[in-house]
């Protein structure tokens, strides 16, 4: 089955404290999963393991039946962490185009402008990100969802610092992505305005 993310008996230890153990789930094309749990239970750690940024103490993550970390996997993955991942001294437009180039998928200026406009940043493309609010910075990061083709989205708290309209917009993006056969794994403390998906409780 193409595009299947499987977590097999994942155990994560932070320092000497075990965070979670034996986490097991799989998400297939056209599905999404929400990782739930109180603060400090290891949601972000789990997402980082799923993205291949951290190694689990035990267990493994498989993509299409193969261990993650290959170039193939990274090409199909889009991971948006809770850090802004934008450069304060660069403009929104520069941030978006540079990150696209570093991803290996260069985009034209118009494409980037269009993506930023869809996230309500029209007219602010050429402002250093330093002058934007937390919510607007978040939008610069999320604008990648439009410009970067990826089958698997791993989103860490995608709705923090966003206003109601932007939350709707982002959840529509995720819904469209899933409907078109993509996969999304995300964490959120808010109720997620999406058709019901899989729930992983930590």
């Amino acid at each position: 089955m193409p595009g299947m993310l499987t977590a097999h008996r994942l155990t994560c230890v932070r320092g000497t404290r075990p965070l979670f153990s034996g986490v097991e789930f799989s998400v297939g094309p056209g599905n999404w999963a929400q990782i739930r749990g109180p603060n400090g239970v290891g949601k972000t750690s789990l997402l980082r393991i799923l993205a291949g940024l951290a190694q689990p103490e035990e267990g493994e993550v498989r993509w299409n039946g193969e261990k993650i970390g290959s170039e193939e996997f990274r090409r199909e993955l889009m991971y948006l962490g809770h850090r802004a991942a934008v450069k304060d001294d660069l403009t929104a437009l520069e941030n978006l185009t540079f990150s696209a180039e570093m991803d290996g998928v260069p985009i034209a200026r118009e494409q980037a402008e269009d993506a930023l406009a869809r996230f309500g940043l029209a007219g602010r493309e050429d402002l250093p990100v330093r002058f934007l609010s937390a919510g607007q910075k978040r939008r610069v990061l999320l604008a990648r969802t439009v410009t970067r083709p990826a089958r698997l989205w791993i989103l860490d708290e995608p709705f923090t610092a966003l206003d109601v309209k932007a939350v709707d917009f982002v959840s529509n993006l995720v819904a469209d992505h899933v409907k078109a056969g993509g996969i999304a794994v995300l964490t959120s403390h808010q109720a997620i305005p999406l058709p019901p998906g899989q729930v992983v409780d930590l």
Partner: protein
Amino acid sequence: MSIATQGEGAIGAVRRSGEGFSMTALTSVLRRDLLLAMRRKAEVLTALFFFLIVSSLFPLGIGPEPALLRKIGPGVLWVGALLATMLGLQRMFYSDHLDGTLEQMVLSSAPLPLLVMGKIIAHWLVSGLPVVILAPILGLQFDLDPGALWILALGLLIGTPVLSLIGAVGAALTLGVRGGGALLSLLVLPLYIPTLIFGAGAVQAHLSGQGAGGHLSLLGALLALALFFVPWATTAALRISLE
């Protein structure tokens, strides 16, 4: 829906274009870091003025003794260059680590050693190349003759990239460590010693009439070795630091 279908098309396009994008990723990191350096001129100029002042303090402190100055000149200039490179090292990966862009680089489909190479080249262009250009002018304070100044600049041109390369490994290793700055110096400065010896030695050999060829060749060998091993070592260090 339309977004997703576009997405599918683009995935196919990337697959077709194959390997060609790797160099785009390298130049993209390079251009981004240079642009960031241009937007924060203060940081770049600090290192440069540091080099300028440190190497001017010696002639001022020692006084007009040309023979002594000529003897210590190459060493002082090289030590100044070493320390000036050190100043910018800690920032090499640190700010990217803080704002999360480093995570995105690690997850990029472009090979990480290439992205790392882009960052190292940017570091050298910003903190190494100005030192190479400035050193012959500062060398005049030490009463070095034109031939020696030329050897000094040539040595720095081969040697400062080695400093940036070795420094990158150290910067990556000390990334997540608190008080990493001091640790970085302790880690990296001993590794700078061979470069210092052959670099300063080249000028001294020229002054004593032996010819600098041997020393410069050894510097070149160091550069070749560092170019070969450093991108991979730095990549491995980054992966460890990010966990």
